[in-house]
């Protein structure tokens, strides 16, 4: 639901579960336009900066454009996969448009930021109608909201896992790029386990680490930077992670074990010197349990061994 963004116009645009968009004139208290033809729930409404174009995103994976100055005549309908070239990584599901927002820049033109149910954040150049930037893996869970701060030229995306991702719009001669500048955890649903990432110097002394690793009712492992509040998300498990253990040894990367509801144990290596979102990497996956893994722990002296209980 959104008002037509011109003061005193008193027109309200609503999208309902009947898969229709209705435009209401609140001065005469009447519906003046009804837009039909959507094949999935309407998830997002946006107006262009000149207020002339209404852009609609829906669960049918299509983005529709209407001319608000011409009684909402349909201008175009674009399929995000076929027309805009956003790849669908989901094997068992169609790509859906969950959120969108309109971005205009003085030099580079008009763009549309699109968030999908596959956790993709795409920047579509409206002149070519193709994707010019795609964040495909990092956000992972469904994007539920996108908004753009024009004064700071920053784009924000929120995913279903309640993380907030901040991107800076970089305008270059070659085009436009989104640079990720922060990733924050807004809310942790049932924090299940947490471990501080202890590190040992070559002389065996523990060094201060600014990282903690945690799991919170999700298949995503979260590496939390306690100084900045940034969170890095690591994917691998197919179900909720239930337990974590870490092991530090002088002069070597810290190892991390995770056990999950997908009946597997994963071994990760942690290197704080690596760049954002590359500090943890999965070394191995251990299978064999037939039930949830409820506990994992390294042998205290020989980290070549660990125990898991399921």
């Amino acid at each position, binding site marked *: *639901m*959104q*008002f*037509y*963004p*011109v*003061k*005193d*116009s*008193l027109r*309200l645009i*609503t999208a*309902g579960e009947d898969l229709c968009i209705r435009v*209401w004139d*609140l001065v005469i208290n009447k519906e003046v336009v009804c837009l039909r033809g959507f094949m999935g729930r309407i998830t997002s409404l946006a107006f262009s900066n000149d207020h002339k174009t209404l852009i609609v995103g829906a669960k049918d994976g299509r983005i529709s454009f209407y001319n608000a100055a011409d009684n909402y005549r349909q201008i175009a309908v674009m399929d995000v996969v076929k027309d805009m070239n956003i790849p669908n990584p989901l094997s068992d599901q169609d790509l859906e448009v969950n959120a969108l927002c309109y971005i205009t820049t003085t030099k580079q033109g008009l763009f549309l930021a699109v968030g999908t149910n596959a956790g993709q954040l795409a920047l579509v150049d409206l002149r070519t109608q193709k994707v010019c930037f795609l964040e495909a893996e990092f956000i992972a869970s469904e994007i539920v909201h996108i908004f753009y701060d024009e004064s700071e030229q920053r784009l*924000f995306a929120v995913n279903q896992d309640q993380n*907030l991702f*901040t991107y800076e719009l970089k305008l270059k001669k070659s085009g436009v790029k989104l640079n990720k500048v*922060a990733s*924050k*955890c*807004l809310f942790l649903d049932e924090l299940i386990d947490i471990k501080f990432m202890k590190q040992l110097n070559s002389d065996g002394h523990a060094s201060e680490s600014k990282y903690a690793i945690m799991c919170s009712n999700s298949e995503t492992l979260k590496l939390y930077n306690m100084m900045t*509040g940034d969170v890095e998300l690591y994917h691998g498990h197919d179900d909720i992670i239930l337990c974590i253990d870490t092991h530090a040894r002088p002069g070597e990367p810290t190892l991390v074990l995770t056990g999950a509801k997908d009946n597997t144990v994963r071994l990760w290596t942690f290197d704080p010197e690596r760049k954002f979102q590359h500090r943890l990497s999965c070394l191995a996956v251990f299978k064999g349990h037939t039930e949830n893994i409820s506990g994992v722990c390294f042998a205290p002296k020989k980290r070549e061994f660990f125990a898991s209980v399921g």
Partner: protein
Amino acid sequence: MLDINSAIVIGKIAHENEEPINFAVAPNQRLIAVTYKNHLVRVYSIGDLKENWKPESVVAAFKTGNMLGLELCFDPSSRYVAIATSDSQIKVYDAVKGF
């Protein structure tokens, strides 16, 4: 209320035994309207955004009949708030006068 740069919560609107459903911030960024599960709508004056933030005042409080206010938005002048309720109706209120 969240500081978007640090992701730190600077303050909250909280009422005992009242669960919020949805909210909308007015375009003038001075008002925030919240719908609650007890069918109440409160419109707050946002005031200064600083540490230990809390709304300056409640400028209006009214009921959406016996229906849940599921979705809401302000008009561009920040005077009116439209509220979609669980009976598939949309009602438009004067945000400050509450009718």
